[in-house]
């Protein structure tokens, strides 16, 4: 599954539904919802990819949360090479990790005992800290976190994260003109970490 799907949230969402006795349709529907955030992310990514529609569609398969976030530039474009390279590394690690887990998971026993359950949240937290350096990013992150927090007890895995993306709709509001120049289009705030440290 990891080699063919390569989407943690969709995989975990589908498996959790199946494991709890859900139907194939319910599992696929939940996974599709969890995966649907890649649609607007892919639309945003499109102009930064190379070639015609077929090639862009193929390159779009490299879309994963961390790569997308790290490859984004302050002007709304994306570093295509960084995204592809970053995803390749993650794909190999994700697939190999799944193989190792499937084969040797029984020997390791409870992976939580090793503290491995802290790895993914920490990874996301480090990325988030870079995003929090802009005022608008802080507000949206807080809203997104609260939305997820509120929905966790009531919705299947994947849904709270997807619903949290609604917080980004604040970006539809036009930003007030700055004294030094013409009105600015909505976008990443000045002072984004991307200005300081290319990743």
């Amino acid at each position, binding site marked *: *599954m990891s080699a*063919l*799907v390569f*989407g943690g949230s*969709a995989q975990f969402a*589908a498996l*959790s539904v*199946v494991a709890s006795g859900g139907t*194939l349709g319910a*599992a*696929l529907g939940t996974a*599709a919802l969890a995966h649907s955030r*890649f*649609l*607007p*992310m*892919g*639309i*945003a990514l*499109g*102009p930064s*990819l190379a070639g015609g*529609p077929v090639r862009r*569609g193929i390159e*779009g398969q490299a879309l994963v*949360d961390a790569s997308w976030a790290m490859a*984004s530039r302050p002007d*709304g474009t994306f570093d295509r090479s960084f995204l592809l390279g970053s995803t390749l590394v993650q794909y190999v690690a994700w697939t190999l990790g799944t193989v190792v887990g499937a084969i040797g998971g029984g020997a390791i026993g409870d992976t*939580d005992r090793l*503290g491995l*359950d*802290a*790895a*993914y*949240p*920490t*990874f*996301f*937290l*480090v*990325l988030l*800290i870079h995003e*929090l350096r802009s005022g608008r990013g802080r507000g949206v*992150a807080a*809203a*997104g*976190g609260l939305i*997820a*927090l509120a929905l*966790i007890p009531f919705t299947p*895995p994947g849904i*709270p994260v997807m*619903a*949290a993306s609604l917080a980004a*709709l604040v*970006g*539809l509001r036009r930003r007030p003109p700055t004294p030094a120049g013409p009105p600015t*289009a*909505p*976008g990443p705030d000045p002072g984004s970490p991307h200005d300081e440290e290319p990743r």
Partner: protein
Amino acid sequence: MSVDVWLLVLALAVIAAVIKGAGPVALGGRDLPPRFTGVVALLAPALLAALVVAGVAGRDGELGLGVEAVGVAAGGAIALRGGSILLCVVVAVGVTAVLRAVT
């Protein structure tokens, strides 16, 4: 588990590929309207915050904090001091493992 696992895997692979492939093709590679770009630029903090919350406080669909929250916080503290992602993750995993061993 009555669901055909391979059917699930293949159907999921198709759904994932279609969703990921549709986005970059949807607008023909044209630039996005500025307002849409503004929303997209803010998706990252919203999604990342939700992923952190779900990963730390949302285990098994229930709200709650475990010792991994302390580990993640330790990793975050390292990040605030300019540590690399790898160092942050190693610290978080290590702190969580130690706390879990002694509690």
